[in-house]
């Protein structure tokens, strides 16, 4: 029985900075790991050790310079995210792979409710049904109702982070990538996030989180990977 969901093999990421006399930097050097279905892998390491870069290579916001990232997709079977074509990656992002960035990046003038619901809209879920779920998530995340129709652009850092998380969790992806999910949150809200991660796992989601907050996330991860 093979329950591996993701195999990162020898992945390297080098940036060539053409604007700074072609200098190159390599934040990720020959990194390999595997994640089984419903695992939670916590990747930690000092700032600048390439944690976010690895997540972005998996999500394909970055193009890995070397190595393979094998994902066991429901839709495509075993697929290498490094070389998969763009439409496949878009489809995987819509259906199987979620990403919560360190900072919220949203369109201006879109309400918090719509921001949270957007992944469901993209999947073709009816507006009313999506918004029902969206309100539930907003309330679970402790976002006060008077903010639901406002644009998150004006929210506090912690509120934005919660919107960001809700957006990643709502679509119940098979693989959830979380970048510093507890940064800028207070103790009580961290608790909520940890509970959300556990609940998602119990529902079949595989989680890879990147953080230096070992105190909050360590206890809910089954595996840890330290980056030098």
């Amino acid at each position, binding site marked *: 029985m093979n329950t591996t969901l993701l195999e990162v093999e020898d992945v390297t990421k080098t940036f060539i900075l053409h604007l700074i006399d072609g200098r190159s930097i390599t934040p990720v050097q020959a990194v390999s790991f595997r994640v089984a279905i419903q695992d939670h892998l916590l990747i930690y390491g000092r700032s600048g050790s390439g944690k976010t870069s690895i997540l972005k290579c998996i999500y394909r916001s970055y193009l890995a310079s070397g190595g393979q990232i094998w994902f066991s997709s429901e839709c495509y079977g075993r697929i290498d995210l490094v070389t998969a074509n763009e439409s496949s990656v878009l489809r995987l992002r819509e259906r199987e792979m979620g990403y919560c960035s360190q900072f919220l990046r949203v369109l201006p*003038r879109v309400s918090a409710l719509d921001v949270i619901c957007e992944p469901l809209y993209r999947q073709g879920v009816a507006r009313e049904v999506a918004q029902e779920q969206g309100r539930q998530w907003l309330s679970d995340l402790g976002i006060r109702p008077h903010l639901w129709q406002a644009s998150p652009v004006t929210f506090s850092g912690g509120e934005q982070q919660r919107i960001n998380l809700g957006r990643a969790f709502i679509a119940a992806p098979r693989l959830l990538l979380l970048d510093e999910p507890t940064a800028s949150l207070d103790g009580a809200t961290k608790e909520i996030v940890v509970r959300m991660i556990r609940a998602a796992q119990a529902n079949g989601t595989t989680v890879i989180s990147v953080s230096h907050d070992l105190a909050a996330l360590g206890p809910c991860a089954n595996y840890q990977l330290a980056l030098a």
Partner: protein
Amino acid sequence: MTTTSLLHVADLHKRYGPGCAACAELTGPSQGRSQCPRCGTVYACVAANFSLQTGEVLGIVGESGSGKSTLLQMVNLSIAADQGQIWYHEPGGSAPVDLLRMDAYAARRFRNDRLGIVHQRPELGLNMHFSVGGNVAEKLLLAEWRHVGRIRGRTSELKLQTELPPERIDDEPYTFSGGMLQRVQIAKALASRPSLLLLDEVTSGLDLSVQARVLDLIRRIQWEEQITMLLVSHDLGVIRQLARRTIVMKNGHIIEAGLTDQIMEDPQHPYTQLLVSSAL
């Protein structure tokens, strides 16, 4: 693969001038120019290749003169390509057809019925002395709508959809503000329910707040109708808001193509790196 291409552009070329033996060596992104210094020929678009999936918004960015509009106008069949193919596959239709191999009548029909275009300069897209209704009706008549009641009905729908103030409906566009003119152009472009909407710098030159509202409108229409769009802009902010995939052009060539977030966060080509770093 289950996704279907609506459009597949293959090896599309457009040049202005006779060309000479030195052109290839002296033009292009590596030379930093699209005009041959020897013979004066301008290479507006060279060997363009890309596909557009049904329902997708594809962004095209690049500096002024890089060939974005030329490419869009070739797809709009309003500039004749020198070489190449534009394969069009109607959703649910039979085999793809090459738009460049259609006869003149079929091409005109196709353009009027299946395509909609919004220009940066409204006077290119609108008859400034027809009312809003007149402009929409003009497009529908060209698309061979004959029934007056249907034309009226469609016109009212479009006015609502593009949020044109009812009290201005009978006015002639030359009395309108820039933002309103773009709404009228959008209404006209959408009139025949085209399968592809072409947008050329539609918010350039508008005040920021007006620009924002026009973008909101385009985004809403995209959501509601799931219409396929080719969106030309030199503004990365506009592209980021609307397009999930992006093509970067320079000196007539496509130098980079990818997922929009990848283009923004991990640009590969030196020029794209410059473009992104200047935008932030």
